[in-house]
């Protein structure tokens, strides 16, 4: 055990800190769930990529920097600390890319990853179907093989970023006679193909953060398939592990929220201290955000020594999503009657961001496999309790 950064790590941190100080937009970008905001965020991805900072853990020849997980955590810490923009391409960079690295061909990596790194292709995920939310194996969307193409029909739903994204990835039933998790294939496809219709779905905040995608005999080249035909489930499970676990929710995000919460509490103690639950929630927020960071460093260190991601995927998912809700609930309590204000309301000074963050936090215990499913997984796979 050695809980000090190396000189190289410290130098990297300083480089990132300096670069972000010089480049992070002074004014916050608009939400990437608006057309204008999406374009702003794509431009930001391009700028990050210009400094080889959009995907620091990837190999250099694919647009990354070949850094290890500890350096990735360092990058994230500086990124969140600087209040830099949210990553519009997180579905691509943090979910699809690890899958591609592990299961894609060399040709596929070269074709997809550099354009992902520089923001040319923004990716949406297309996992769920209206009858297959938490029960992902209930997929019915068909991909019928026709020579060197698949012909897609059916629909996907809850596809984040799909309204303005360029590409999507998902699971399709390539063997019509199969059921459950057999006979599925993992396909990548442009969202502008003929036969695709996108129905934006408005979220709680009124913005179309996700969409339903309809496929009407959409032709997708077979070489857009990751892994073997019919092996999509196993590949997707690895991706789901990334989604729930280490990669998507870097601890710095929650540490920054905890810090903002402490600041908000300090500014409002005159009223907030009348409810002792608020002070308790603030202390707990700091402790839990630190605990999450420590657990992540421990996992990253273990992976660096050749370990594998295991049940952390599920325990992390539960911990960060409940922490995020608690912190935002505490902020709403502190804000009291001002908490309901929309960020653009004229008297919303000091309120900005918390309401949107609160709404977003409520999705945490639901997406990427509900927390109920995660608890089942922990109980059955980690603790060995019998299946029902």
């Amino acid at each position, binding site marked *: 055990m050695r809980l000090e950064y190396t000189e190289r790590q410290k130098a990297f941190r300083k480089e990132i800190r300096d670069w972000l100080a010089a480049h992070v937009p002074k004014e916050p970008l608009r939400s990437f769930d608006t057309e204008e905001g999406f374009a702003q965020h794509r431009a930001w991805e391009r700028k990050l990529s210009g400094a080889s900072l959009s995907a620091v853990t990837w190999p250099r020849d694919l647009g990354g920097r070949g850094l290890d997980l500890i350096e990735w955590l360092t990058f994230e810490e500086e990124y969140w600390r600087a209040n830099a923009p949210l990553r519009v391409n997180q579905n691509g960079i943090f979910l699809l890319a690890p899958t591609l690295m592990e299961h894609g061909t060399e040709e596929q990596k070269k074709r997809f990853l550099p354009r992902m790194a520089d923001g040319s292709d923004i990716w949406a995920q297309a996992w*769920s179907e209206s*009858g297959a*939310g*938490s*029960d992902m194996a*209930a997929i019915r969307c068909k991909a019928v093989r026709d020579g060197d193409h698949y012909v897609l029909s059916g629909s996907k*739903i*809850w596809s984040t970023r799909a309204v303005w994204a360029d590409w999507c990835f998902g699971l399709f039933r390539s063997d019509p006679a199969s059921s459950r998790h057999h006979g599925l294939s993992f396909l990548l496809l442009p969202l502008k193909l003929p036969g695709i219709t996108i129905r934006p*779905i*408005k*979220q*709680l*905040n*009124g913005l179309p953060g*996700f969409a339903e995608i309809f496929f009407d005999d959409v032709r997708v080249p077979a070489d857009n398939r990751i892994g073997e035909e019919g092996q999509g489930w196993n590949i997707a499970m690895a991706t789901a592990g990334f989604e729930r676990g280490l990669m998507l929710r870097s601890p710095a995000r929650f540490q920054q929220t905890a810090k903002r919460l402490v600041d908000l509490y300090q500014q409002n103690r005159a*009223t*907030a*201290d*009348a*409810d*002792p*639950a*608020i002070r308790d929630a603030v202390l707990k927020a700091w402790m839990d955000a630190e605990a999450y960071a420590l657990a992540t460093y421990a996992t990253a260190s273990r992976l660096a020594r050749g370990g594998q991601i295991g049940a952390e995927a599920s325990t992390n998912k539960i911990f960060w999503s409940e922490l995020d*809700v608690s912190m935002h*609930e505490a902020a*709403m*309590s502190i*804000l*009291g*009657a*001002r*908490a*309901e*204000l*929309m960020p*653009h*309301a*004229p*008297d*919303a000074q000091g309120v900005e961001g918390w*309401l949107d963050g609160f*709404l977003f936090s*409520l*999705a945490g*215990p*639901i*997406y990427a496999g*509900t*927390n*109920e499913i995660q*608890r089942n997984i922990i109980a059955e796979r980690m603790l060995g309790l019998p299946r029902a």
Partner: protein
Amino acid sequence: MDFTFDDQQLAFRDAIRKFLMVEAAPEWLREIWETRSGRSLDLRTKLADQGLTAISVPEPHGGMGLGDLDWVLAQQELGYYAIPDSLNDTAYLAVDLLKRLPAGHALAAQWLPRIAQGTARIAIAHPVNPFTADAENADLLLLWHEDEIHALKPAQAKLTLNESIDMSRRLYRIDWTPTASSRVCDASAGRAIWEDLLNRAGLALAAQLVGLASRMLDLGIDHSVNRKQFGKPVGSFQAVKHHMADVAVKIEFARPVVYRAAYAMQKGQADRAVHVSHARLAAGEAARLAARRSIQVHGAMGYTWEADLQMFMKRAWALEANWGDRSFHKARVAAHVLDPVAELGPAHTF
């Protein structure tokens, strides 16, 4: 000792419920959300026809002369159907304020009959709320100024719209200057009136929050009975059952607290403030849990604009911090519970 409502009160509640079920369906709420004023003249007329604007207006002024115990049942329904603020502000809160003005004040005779008929809207500005709902649509503003009561036409003040996440709430910052001619009542008489207004508002919102909690529970149940995952309704999973059961328990034990507060208000009992704050906290907790659990059992659907749940969640979040937030009400409960001379424990419930 009888802690039940009488048949007439329950029949009145049932009539309101039946009426709102038809006239205040979620589709209709969505429709008025989209209008500029956020208000529907049609609904206002119907609410008046139903007698809802006349409940506590004295009979000489054309009302029914009823009180807090009748209102508390109605408020639960208003919450369940997410009826916008103006009915409560006008027909419950403003009526009480006007009734209690020093005898023979012209304002009472002028406005109470119009309120009863449903042709007047009144908005109330009190410093516990940074904004006033519906100020622009009101015919009259009643305003706090150092415990004095003032009255203005909306045009006499500067109103700044502040959008709320709850689109049924049109919130305004009011900038205005108190003058001798705007003053309705001095501080010595005003203090007690404002005090009770604050309590009555707390009671109203507590009842609405219980109604909202019930609605969110019902929406969660509906969804989990109909939505299938892994080949069966999600409502057949024990985790979902327990999520919903927890909400039901919270509601069951918030409701009597709200009724007790209504009784304390109706009788003007000395300890009414602590009963109201207790009711607000219990109802708020039920509503918060109902929102959390209902969105959870809805899954991704609960996170959408198109699912009705969002309207009720947003309203619950907004109302819970209105007319005194949780800190405000907890401080009032603490003042009672930790008062060394307070009589606590069994035999002091009533």
